[in-house]
């Protein structure tokens, strides 16, 4: 099989949530001597990108996106041992988590997934994270971006606190802050002084890319 055809089939299998097919095709790519990174980048990640697009278009929803991600991960497990370390270049470092008081992390997990697929290095703090911890971990990790999610209206003030702590410590400019989640709006993001608002997980990748290339775009300013 042609390399491009194989990549296309792998991407299709990810979109179709077919773990077994992905596993077989990933194995085959190794037997054909195709570079593992290329298969991940042009096959698996492409498929996940298309799944993200379907999610954005409301063709796919959370269950489907998670199953696509499982299929992608099966492929990554096959290919990872064969990766040569030099061709792993990352777009930036992201620290993400769900605000203290909220244990709903479905949205955040989707963001991590799409960010990683999109080429970012992600440190996932988990859920129910105090504002100060976002800041300390971001400093430790040398993050470019802090992503804060919440599903609950009641925890929205925690997002503002993160921004305020950054300002108080005089390190606001060191990080781009992206907020998102059910009750969050672009207006709220602006109000609390965040740099970006992400509508959903697929959008988060685009916003992150924009922010690292151009500061003014992400809030539509």
């Amino acid at each position, binding site marked *: 099989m042609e390399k491009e055809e194989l990549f296309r089939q792998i991407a299709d299998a990810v979109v179709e949530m077919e773990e077994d097919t992905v596993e077989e095709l990933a194995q085959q790519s190794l037997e054909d001597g195709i570079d593992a990174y290329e298969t991940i980048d042009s096959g698996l990640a492409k498929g996940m990108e298309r799944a993200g697009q379907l999610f954005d278009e409301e063709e796919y929803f*959370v269950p489907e996106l998670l199953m696509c991600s499982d299929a992608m991960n099966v492929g990554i497990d096959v290919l990872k041992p064969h990766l040569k370390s030099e061709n792993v270049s990352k777009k930036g470092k992201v620290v993400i988590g769900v605000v203290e*008081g909220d244990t709903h*992390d*479905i949205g955040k997990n989707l963001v991590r997934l799409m960010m990683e697929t999109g080429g970012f290095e992600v440190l996932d703090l988990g859920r129910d994270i105090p504002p100060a911890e976002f800041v300390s971990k971001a400093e430790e990790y040398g993050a470019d971006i802090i992503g804060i999610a919440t*599903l609950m209206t009641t925890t929205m003030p925690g997002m503002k606190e993160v921004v305020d702590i950054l300002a108080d410590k005089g390190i606001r400019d060191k990080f781009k802050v992206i907020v998102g989640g059910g*009750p969050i709006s672009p207006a709220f993001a602006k109000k609390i002084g965040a740099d970006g608002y992400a509508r959903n997980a697929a959008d988060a990748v685009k916003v992150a890319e924009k922010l690292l290339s151009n500061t003014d775009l992400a809030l539509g300013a």
Partner: protein
Amino acid sequence: MDVLSPKERLLRSLKGEAVERAPVICPGGMMNSAIVDVMKNHGNVLPDGHRDSKIMADLALDVQADTGFENVGIPFCMTVEAEALGSDIDFGTLKCEPKIAKEIFPSVKDVIYKEDDALVKSDRAGTVFQAIYNAAGHSPDIPVIGSITGPLSTAASVVDPMNFLKELRKVKDESHRFVDYVTNQLIGYAQHMVDNGASVISIADPTATGEILGPKMFGDYAVVYINKLVDAIHEMGVPVIVHICGRMQAVTQHIANLHADAISVDALVSLKKLKEEYPHLTTMGNLSTFLLEFGETPNIQRSTEQLIQDEINILAPACGLSTSTPLQNIQTFTGVAKAV
């Protein structure tokens, strides 16, 4: 001038009968208004009130008296059901509501099924029943709303939610068996709430949103099990409010299939449009909780007036209130609602 008592007004509204003005309520549970201001005013505080029926009832009555909402809402969280079915709970603080610390089962395939009355026999449920009983006895004209965490949200608080959502597609038979079991537990819970004096049941199911599930899974699971619960409560002779979180475009076609007496929606949804599309629907909502927390008085007034002008049947906050919402803002909301 008010002719009807708050209880008559709410019950009539839920039946679609004429009322002199729309009631203004806050059902409790996910949508509770136990704000810090009220707790500090009277000293009945959370998290103690989650496990003490006297504090729970007193706080619910304080909330009603201070805010002007025309109901008592019990309990103040969404963890009673999941704790009874085995999950670990973090009770939070005065400012921060309780949450699931850890779901007990990783997969629907691992669930150890309890007796169908496990929830009603739990200590937490007992506290809720006693609090409802106390509050209902205190003021018979004020309706007590018993708040229940919906079938899918309870299920996703007992089984790891990421796995649970996949398994709705992947492991259908076991997922249906599990959600059905959860629903049966909730039916018993509702029955005891009613027996102890709840005159309305409100179901909030934030996991069962169109945005998370999509139309297919929403139809296959949310509609089926929410309706099973609603039908059972109707047999007890009690009306039911169902709150749907988030944007609804993906599932609007299912909303008319819900058997609820009123549909409560988030701030993102235009209730006016929903009414136009489904004229028979009794609508509830949806004053932005963001506005309630951060808004200026004139804006709160205007938005409330808009809801009244749009003939929303029951006025309520759009979602769960932040505990740091200023009491005065809530009073502005209820004041404008009652001044009609």
